[in-house]
């Protein structure tokens, strides 16, 4: 029983953490452009020599 008093808040806390992270990610626009992220990997960081 005493174990539960620790484990249940831990379980709830982890769940809440996940939920808050998801909301944060949504607010940050992480899901706005899913295909774009895959494309941006291919962009060279240096400007090409002209």
């Amino acid at each position, binding site marked *: *029983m005493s174990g539960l008093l620790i484990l249940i808040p831990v379980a*709830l806390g982890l*769940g809440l953490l996940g939920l808050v992270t998801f909301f944060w990610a949504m607010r940050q626009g992480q899901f706005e452009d*899913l*295909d774009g992220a895959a494309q941006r990997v291919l962009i060279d960081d240096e400007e090409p020599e002209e």
Partner: protein
Amino acid sequence: MTAPARLDPASAEALVDTRFTVPGIRCAGCIAKIERELPKLDGIASARVNFSAKRVAIRHAESMPHDALTNALEQLGFEAQELDDNPLGSEDAEAKRLQRALAVAGFGMMNVMLLSVSVWSGAGGVTRDLFHWLSGVIALPVIAYAGQPFFRSAWMALKYRRTNMDVPISIGVLLATALSMYETVAGGGHAYFESAVMLLFFLLAGRALDAAMRTRTRAGIGALLSRMGRSAMVIAADGSFKTVASQELKPGMTMAVAAGEALAADGVVEQGASAVDNAMLTGESTPERVAADSPVYAGAVNLSAPLRVRVTAAASNTLLAEIARLMDEAGQSRSRYVRIADRASRLYAPAVHTLALLAFVGWMLAGAGWHQSLVIAIAVLIITCPCAMGLAVPAAQVVTSGALLKRGLLVKDGSALERLAEVDIALFDKTGTLTLGTPRADISGLDPEARAVALALSQASNHPLSKALASSLREAGVEAAEVTDISEQGGEGLFGTWRGIEVALERPDCAQAGLSSQLRIGMDTSLIDFHDPLRADAKQAIDALSEMGIESRILSGDRSASVSTIARKLGLHARAGASPQDKLATLEHLREQSRNPLMIGDGINDGPALAAAHASIAPGSASDVSQQAADAVFTGRALMPVATAIRAARACMRVVRQNFGFAIIYNVFAVPLALFGMVTPLIAAIAMSASSIVVVANSLRLARVAR
């Protein structure tokens, strides 16, 4: 990752965001080009590309005109259109609300389930009561938040004395929660918190899928701006020019229309000679020559030379606005269509409520006491709650539309798929639908030198024939010759000098039936023919449709000569010269014969018909208005997606019916258990998730449907 701000610190001007839709973004290179090059211009702070939505958000100085931004994008090689302030905002917000609700319900479900499993595996006494209390503390706010979409929709339905799928859901969830609270307070054995939360989770998954499908398609369809010119240059009595918004134009004003501009109002040409592209209004692909006293219509594009036009009808009195009105009215007949899920719930909801009520009354009469009777009635409600049904339709439709999307066909929403599956006759517009809609030049009669000269001349003009010729020549690998002094004379052609010889690309001397232009080099002339070719697989697509029992016909606004050639080639019944009203009348006539017509068309003149038909498809090259009115949009040069769409839609409805069948079988077994009071929270939870998983798995089979 974000482009650095290169604004002059001295010009501490307010920055604003403007969004553009740029359909040409196709690769990482495009992203890099836009995000790197734009901020180098004065006044632009940064640009950010959204690849999925094919949009660019530009942060720029407030004083910068939006035309300059469009031009800047065009100079980078991207066609761009400004997006209205936030045309998709409400849709996006709705999808986001559902996602948040789904996340909350998922969180609640996992935690409540954690506690419930311990109760089911034998926790008793104080532990059980504690767990019930904890479940309640988690479940109540979760239900209050995640249940809102259902409660709101059910309340709306009840307010108008109707019922929909959300009414039994809301009643089931609310009663289950209330009973569980009572059980918890009274220290009873069974609480149904996990069932209530799980129900919300599965149903929200269905809703979120449905919303995701709609937003994805809207992003693809992109530009929502009307084609009509939004302002016009008006010549005042004293000869000065000023820009007037199209709504403020009045009959009697004189507009100066530059070459390449769209007309903002209907009018009569006062001065100048040019050709106008009426394709969007009449479906006719040949540019129409206009001179003094010719009528011209809003939405038409002036092609070759500046015109002065006296306005005869403006704003809501134009032909274009008339078509828009017809479209609005025509669209209302479609809104009478009732989606299959709601049709099912019309039968389902009363049946479930009666059953639950009968269970309560029956057990009361049998002397079970009100508490036990209520528990059983609520168990009936929970077990019959249309969990599988709420998922059955969206899951199948989302998978189907995803499969179609990969084949270049965007379906706007689930109801479009349902209606597509029901069509039994297809009406095709000609230009841009059966044909590609852009003329192609026959360059086989030209020698290499002539080709080079022709390219040099044609690429200097915006005339559709010149553009077509230039693209045909470029495809053949022709390099432009060095032609100097190129001048364009409206209605006549292009003239220039090549190696000291006079060259021209002009209107042929003899008037011919087809489209052609004449290339003159010195004294030699050669004729270049243009034709608007059929889509390569038009015949196969029509055969595929007839195999599915769908008759095809042509219903075009074009001249009968060009329509009948194509009709003969495809062996179809054809009607030519149909006005938008005629098209509507044809559809109405078919409807009276209780047939379900499918309209496939691209022009603004097809808009009302697209909106009125039982289902409609437009090609990606269609006018924005038509793309908006149509249920589905297909891209590319093939016509086959039309047949694929119908096949997929029918397969989808087969799976939906299977899913419904499954839900009924499940109820046949589960309801007696509930009626006899044998459903514990454990059985309810297992039954609910098992049925949902089966429905989703069955729907996933549709992923291969468009192959």
